[in-house]
């Protein structure tokens, strides 16, 4: 650690106290801030903004209730404190939860840290009946306290100014902090209770309500047995269905746009390999995939609203009873929900689950949740099946999401049956106050996710399009007749090798090739499909056809239609189960610290995916 040039200061504090919010203000970072205790599960570093003119590095950490960690996310924080010789820490506390958040203060103080307190949520405190005599608290604790308004950033400047670059002579050591026994814990809380009585004032005639008033009103609805659960299902249904409803017009528009662009390119560069490559390779694939960017935005925006409102902790509590019966914990709710976005951060979010078995099961079923990379695949197929009835399409889209969740829960109960483990499990969760979401942050985050969808999968699609185009054009690139050219290409020869694997689920070699590319990233499926059907289309006049139209016209070698209902459904079934994502495999291995877990998960899910897809196709073919 380069202590001579930069002072490193971690932000430490109880869950949901506002650490990440403060970190963003201090460093200009854009960490996600979520109104749920335990949203940050990994530390991150950032430099104090230039304007404060101090060479200081700030670290955002997962929230902790104590320096004696109980969960893996708490361990992250305690481990970095142990591994580094920080002398100073900024203790972040929620002004409305003072009693509870001062507990760690006592531990940090005993460990010997030089502490500044950042008191967040002072805007909420102002609305409360209770007021805090901050000057007296500073005096009692002999510590500097900086009040901060985390929504607008008031007070952040004062905090930066209060950071003292001089390193004290203190040598804090967590290793030397003796474990607090029951008596000590209790006496610390008693001590804080006394302190609170001293510093709390109830101003006369101060016209303010109980802070919890609004929260109680909303909880009456959201925690109501029938109403609460129906509202939740209704909202989720709306989220998933609306993704499709919004998708449909975009798909038509962008499909048409890229179709014309391709045609234009071909007229500008007629009979040239480069023109063919641009139109049939690049434009077709990028177009097919870029259509879905707005849907990614909508998905992340709506999940963001749920996250920042304070509702998640309620949902977690509502499902705990049911989840505990199938080997999980209410705390699995948040990881599962974020699994609808992406399995990678979702797997990290399971760190808040204390019990090993519950965490194991949650990790195992997470990749089944419909992540955003599958969204384009489902949207394409549903548009294909329900093009005449977009309203119904949206409903089916929502059903696919619910289906993936139900399958995950069925897996969970099966695993629960086989894994014998009786280590104690519990569910204690603090419920934060409801808050109006921070719209700017949510919008920005959704935008960021959309851009990363485009920039991450975009280049992969470009490369795959290049490969597929090359393979289907060479070696006979001089051949005038496109059909002959194609039939003698490398792609066709490779295709015939892999065809038998996909034949039982109704696919031809093109479907097979597109499936193989999904193991690079699921979202490239629509792109590779677009290229493959463009270069293999035998109908020369149809250059402007959209992907959906091409799919309708596609045939097997014997002339029978390719995209039949059984094939489309069996492909969707495959995507529900299959784990095609290398990043997920890597994070599973890292989080569970077990290659075995990751391999078992990878093999099991993909084998089941294949079997289920084949079974679906075979059964539907008989029925229809």
């Amino acid at each position, binding site marked *: 650690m380069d202590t001579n040039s930069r002072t490193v200061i971690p932000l430490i504090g109880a869950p949901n106290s506002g650490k990440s919010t403060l970190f963003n203000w201090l460093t200009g970072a854009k960490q996600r801030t979520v109104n749920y205790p335990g949203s940050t599960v990994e530390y991150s570093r950032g430099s104090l903004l230039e304007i404060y003119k101090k060479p200081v590095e700030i670290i955002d950490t997962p929230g902790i*209730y*104590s320096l*004696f960690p*109980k969960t893996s996310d708490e361990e992250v924080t305690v481990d970095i404190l142990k591994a580094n010789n920080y002398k100073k820490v900024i203790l972040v506390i929620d002004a*409305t*939860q003072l*009693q*509870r958040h001062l*507990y760690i203060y006592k531990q940090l103080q005993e460990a010997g840290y030089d502490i500044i307190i950042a008191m967040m949520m002072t805007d909420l405190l102002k609305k*409360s009946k*209770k007021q805090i005599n901050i000057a007296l608290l500073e005096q009692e604790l002999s510590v500097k306290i900086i009040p901060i308004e985390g929504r607008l950033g008031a007070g952040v400047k004062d905090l930066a100014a209060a950071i003292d670059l001089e390193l004290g002579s203190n040598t804090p050591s967590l290793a030397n902090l003796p474990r607090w026994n*029951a008596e000590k*814990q*209790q006496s610390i*809380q*008693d001590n804080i*209770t006394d302190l609170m009585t001293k510093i709390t004032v109830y101003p006369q005639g101060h016209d303010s309500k*109980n*802070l*919890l008033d609004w*929260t*109680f009103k909303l*909880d009456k609805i959201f*925690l109501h*047995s*029938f109403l609460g*659960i129906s509202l939740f299902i209704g909202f989720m249904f709306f989220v998933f269905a609306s993704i499709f409803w919004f998708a449909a017009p975009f798909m038509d528009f962008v499909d048409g746009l890229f179709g014309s662009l391709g045609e234009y390119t071909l007229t500008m560069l007629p009979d040239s390999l480069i023109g063919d490559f641009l139109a049939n390779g690049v434009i077709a694939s990028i177009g097919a995939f870029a259509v879905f960017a707005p849907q990614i935005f909508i998905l992340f925006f709506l999940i963001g609203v749920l996250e920042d409102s304070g509702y998640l*902790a309620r949902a*977690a*509590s*509502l499902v*705990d*009873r*049911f989840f*505990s019966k199938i080997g999980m914990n*209410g705390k699995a709710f948040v990881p599962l929900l974020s699994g609808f976005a992406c399995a990678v951060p979702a797997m990290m979010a399971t760190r808040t689950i204390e019990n090993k078995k519950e965490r194991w099961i949650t990790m195992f079923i997470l990749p089944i949740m419909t992540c955003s990379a599958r969204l384009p695949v489902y949207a394409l197929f549903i548009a294909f099946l329900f093009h005449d009835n977009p309203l119904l399409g949206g409903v089916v889209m929502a059903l696919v999401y619910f289906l993936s969740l139900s399958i995950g829960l069925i897996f969970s109960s099966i695993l629960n049956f086989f894994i014998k483990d009786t280590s*104690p499990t*519990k*569910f*204690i*969760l*603090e*419920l*934060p*106050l409801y808050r109006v979401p921070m719209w700017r942050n949510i919008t920005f985050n959704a935008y960021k996710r959309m851009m990363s969808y485009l920039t991450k999968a975009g280049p992969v699609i470009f490369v795959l399009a290049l490969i597929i185009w090359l393979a289907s054009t060479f070696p006979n690139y001089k051949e005038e007749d496109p059909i002959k050219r194609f039939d003698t290409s490398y792609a066709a020869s490779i295709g015939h090798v892999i065809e038998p694997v996909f034949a039982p689920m109704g696919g031809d070699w093109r479907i097979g090739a597109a499936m193989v590319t999904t193991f690079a990233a699921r979202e490239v499926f629509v792109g590779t499909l677009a290229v493959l059907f463009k270069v293999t289309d035998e109908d020369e006049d149809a250059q402007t056809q959209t992907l959906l139209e091409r799919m309708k016209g596609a045939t097997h070698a014997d002339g029978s239609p390719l995209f039949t209902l059984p094939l489309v459904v069996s492909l969707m079934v495959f995507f529900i189960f299959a784990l095609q994502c290398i990043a997920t495999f890597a994070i599973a291995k890292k989080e569970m610290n077990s290659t075995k877990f990751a391999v078992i998960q990878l093999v099991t899910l993909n084998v089941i995916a294949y079997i289920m897809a084949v079974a679906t196709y075979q059964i539907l073919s008989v029925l229809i």
Partner: protein
Amino acid sequence: MNLSEIKKDGQFEVLGVESDELRERLTEMGVYRGLRGKLVRHLPFGGPVILQAGESLFALRREDAQWIQILEL
């Protein structure tokens, strides 16, 4: 009397927690001996109980609540 037995809107004072493991976590989270609170509601289908203490709210599994000895006020 333990916390799982108290009725909705019942006020209580925490007397102690019979499981060491649970006690430590609860104390750290701010549910400790001497704390006064109120049982706000029971979640449906035997789900967790919701407690209020000051300006904090907690959800606690009913099985866990059984370990918490209370005095009804």
